[in-house]
């Protein structure tokens, strides 16, 4: 067999190429089995109606049109997820940046405090959801106890009120703000000292140094936190499933929870696949939006284009 793209036969380079293809086989197989094939299969499924029992029936684009035009729960779940994402991600970013700057002030025992702040980010999942369920308990929970201590009033029914359930989830997401903070802190410590010294010689004020040195220098990290934050938050599932089951009155029906119900409770595999692709498009839309905007506000040190 003549393989023109490979280096000359019998050379070291040729052998190295063979080793390369051999060693990456786990990834290549995994890519074909768990990414490439499922993508194609999922596209085809989204054009069918299938309940896993009877044979699949092609229905064209009707799954998509049904979601977009005739399914109020689809729009509800998209709305809920978008509100949650654009409520929690900016607050978390701002708080993460603020705390990182505070941490960077030569505070005594900084590593100790960093550990404390980061601790909530190492735990996640169902146990955390159940903990917060208890914290939000209207009569005996920690949050309303603190509200009572400070204001001497009975706090609200957080998870039982349509208008409070998403704010409650946003409060909960703030608990793990230390995760983003640690990344920003690492970036802050990489900012060359000379920049600040030069600014001080020029008589720059604290605020001006913050605005013209600190922010530009950590903007790539803020950008990274923003992109991963949007992507992760759009896919939130566990909190809605465990704590509220999407309630009250679908006020916390997160998109992936609705997708899960369609696929594994109503066995509408085709419809759920269409929902997955719509989610992909929505996430891509916002990711590209942020990427496009990044040239306006993300500063990269050095001339090389990143």
């Amino acid at each position, binding site marked *: 067999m003549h393989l023109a793209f490979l280096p000359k036969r019998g050379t070291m380079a040729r052998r190295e*190429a063979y080793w390369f293809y051999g060693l990456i086989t786990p990834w290549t197989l995994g890519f074909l089995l768990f990414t490439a094939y*499922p993508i194609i299969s999922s596209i085809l499924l989204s054009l069918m109606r299938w309940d896993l029992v009877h044979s699949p029936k092609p229905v064209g684009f009707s799954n998509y049109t049904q979601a977009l035009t005739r399914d109020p729960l689809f729009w509800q779940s998209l709305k809920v997820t978008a509100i949650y994402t654009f409520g929690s991600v900016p607050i978390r970013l701002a708080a993460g940046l603020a705390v990182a700057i505070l941490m960077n002030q030569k505070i005594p025992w900084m590593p100790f405090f960093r550990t*404390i702040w980061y601790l909530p980010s190492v735990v996640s999942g169902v146990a955390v959801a159940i903990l917060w369920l*208890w914290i939000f308990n209207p009569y005996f929970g920690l949050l309303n106890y603190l509200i009572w201590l400070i204001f001497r009033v009975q706090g609200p029914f957080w998870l039982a009120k349509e208008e409070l359930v998403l704010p409650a989830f946003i409060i909960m997401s703030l608990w793990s703000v230390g995760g983003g903070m640690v990344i920003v802190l690492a970036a802050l410590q990489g900012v060359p000292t000379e920049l600040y010294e030069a600014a001080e010689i020029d008589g720059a004020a604290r605020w001006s140094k913050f605005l013209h040195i600190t922010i530009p220098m950590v903007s790539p*990290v803020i950008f990274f936190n923003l992109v991963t934050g949007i*992507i992760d938050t759009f896919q939130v599932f566990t909190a809605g499933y465990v704590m509220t089951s999407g309630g009250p009155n679908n006020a916390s029906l997160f998109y992936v929870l609705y997708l*899960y119900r369609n696929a594994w409770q109503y066995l509408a595999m085709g419809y759920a696949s269409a929902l997955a692709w719509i989610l992909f498009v929505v996430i891509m839309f916002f990711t590209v939006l942020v990427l496009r905007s990044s040239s306006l506000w993300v500063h990269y040190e050095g001339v*090389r284009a990143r």
Partner: protein
Amino acid sequence: MTALERPAMRERVPANRAGARQAPWLLRKSVQERLWRGFALVLILVGGAACLLPFLWMVSTSFKSQVEVYQFPPRWIPRHFLWRNYTAAFTILPFGRFFLNSAIIAISSMIGTVLSCSVVAYAFARLRAPGRDALFLVLLATMMLPGQVTIIPVYITFRYLGWINTFKPLIVPSFFAGAFSVFLLRQFFMSIPAEMDDAAKIDGAGVLGTFFRILVPMSKPALATVAIFSFMGDWSSFFGPLLYLNSKDKMTVPVALSFFRNTQSGSGNMAYMMAVSVIALLPPVLIFFFAQRYFIQGIVVTGLKG
């Protein structure tokens, strides 16, 4: 994407660099500077307390009696420490079994991830072959794809294979080199000077010899980081186990917790629920305290890739 060329995992980010920058300020010790630092310290203390409070709340509740749980205002230190809430955790439902299941899955996946990802990352970092960079871009692109897009066809495939209600769907894929860990390890391998390889080659080591004698011993921190991230992710993972495990003897801790929350004996017994949650969160918290530096390293590598 400079990160691809840059040796990203800096072993020791000079921790006192920020301190060095502040030194002239410290010596001056202006009133304004002291005020600012005091303000920062207070905010960090209050926020740190807010980070710890939910944990303390959980532990406190876990030792209370049924009566004490529903007392207002709550007592932070229970009158009697009821250890039987913890022993009950293993008798009301077989949580011992669930912990074993979680451990089997998380440890097997961890082994699979470290083995497959290190080999693939080595190939991408050190071996030259036509198409290598294009393939690496494909690998990076797969990180962007939300899991919901592929999960339905993957689920259907495992169903055909008869793997539902076995651990296989949760373990086998980890042997096929996940993109994130490959990326992290490749970045680390790139930061090890190639001269080290050359020295081994002069000594007659082949492709695999170089890998095992040079890169593996020098990359222990990075391999530990990948192993820890993998374990922590699988330990608290919920969506996959929820889909694939449905009989009681196969459940993992998160699935059992979610299941138990909806049963009669669970929803009414907060002390018991908190005791189980404490045990469930213990492994991640302990690992975090004992392996903190790997966390910070992993964060720096993955966080600064922007």
